[in-house]
């Protein structure tokens, strides 16, 4: 290959949690400057047990955000401090390469 794509590092924050938190989480992400995210319905099991998603009140979501490292860390800290005690929450951070950094 002669040409190479220019890529830029960003942080991908993945939060798997209860569906009722979708609205507050998105609001708090926006407040911290996040611009791009996707949300999926998921089923799964973790420390607190299985969340089968059989019932409306028992649905789980996977919220995936790509943003600056500082934004991701600030949101992750906030989620840990605010929600982790009473809600099922799993958080992971990873570095990803994006092509158009201004979009994140």
């Amino acid at each position, binding site marked *: 290959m002669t040409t190479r794509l220019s890529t830029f590092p960003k942080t991908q924050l993945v939060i798997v949690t209860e569906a009722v938190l979708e609205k507050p989480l998105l609001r708090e992400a926006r407040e911290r400057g996040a611009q791009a995210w996707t949300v999926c319905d998921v089923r799964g099991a973790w420390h607190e047990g299985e969340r089968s998603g059989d019932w*409306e*009140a028992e649905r789980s979501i996977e919220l995936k955000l790509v943003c600056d490292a500082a934004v991701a860390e600030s949101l992750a800290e906030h989620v840990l401090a605010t*929600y982790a005690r009473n*809600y099922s929450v799993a958080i992971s951070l990873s570095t990803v390469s994006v092509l158009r950094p201004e979009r994140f």
Partner: protein
Amino acid sequence: MIDVVVFFFLLGVFARVVKSDLRLPEALYETLSIYLLLAIGLKGGIELSKQPLAALAPQVLACMALGFVIPFVLFPLMRSLKLSGADAAALAAHYGSVSVVTFAVATAALARQGIEHESHAALWVAVMEAPGLVAGILLARWSREGGSRARWGELAHDVLFGKSVLLLLGGLAIGAIAGESGTAPIKAVFIDPFKGVLALFLLELGLVAGGRLGEVRRFGPAVLVVGLGVPPLLALAGAAVGLALGLSTGGVALLATLAASASYIAAPTAMRIAVPEANAALSITAALGITFPFNIVIGIPIYIALAQRLTA
């Protein structure tokens, strides 16, 4: 004699107990619930168009007061069962609020027995959903264990514009404005197939409730005491309010049923946000795993018999 729709519920429970792979697609479940709420609202609305609205004010206020008071009465009882303040408040809120499907099964049972009831009763359901939830949040705050971060504006929005109240009130409004002749063209979809759709929805509820049976053991006797003991007591309170309002036999039975029913759609979501410290599985096990089956299989026939005796 058990109403035919109840058999579908039992089939769902059976399917879950024997670990069948039966699972209704989520989109179908959503569609059925939207249909039921709209159809119940429409049916009530058509009747609403035939009477002066002012005459209904005492009924609306009494229903709301009943829903609001129930959690305050249940809270000490639940605390005496050694539940934490947050758990007791959240669970009490589920019983203050109502179950639309329990109501639908009760109306089907009344129709089958040829017992008249106020056809605008859907209005009672719509106004009884929220007060119990508000009471539960207040209780959680006062017990100083939770609810301190309740965002009232957001909660009000979610309850008033959540799908159940929106569709019930929307259906009532459409039915009231369009009246009998206006709704005639959509009758074949919204009125006639109602019971068949209810049967299908009950199959799904049976699957979910059946999955909850295992949880009953986890929470021990407290959840059984609440799930089986509370509904008959609340039914008496509902019947008393119905009598005081001068309702028909069917109306008294419906209000008793509504009082005895526990919410398992609006309440779990509202309580999860407003009282995060409460154990959500405990409330849903009591409301959907125990109280709902109890009401539709055993409770409703008893409440109807009670209403017949009281209004005889």
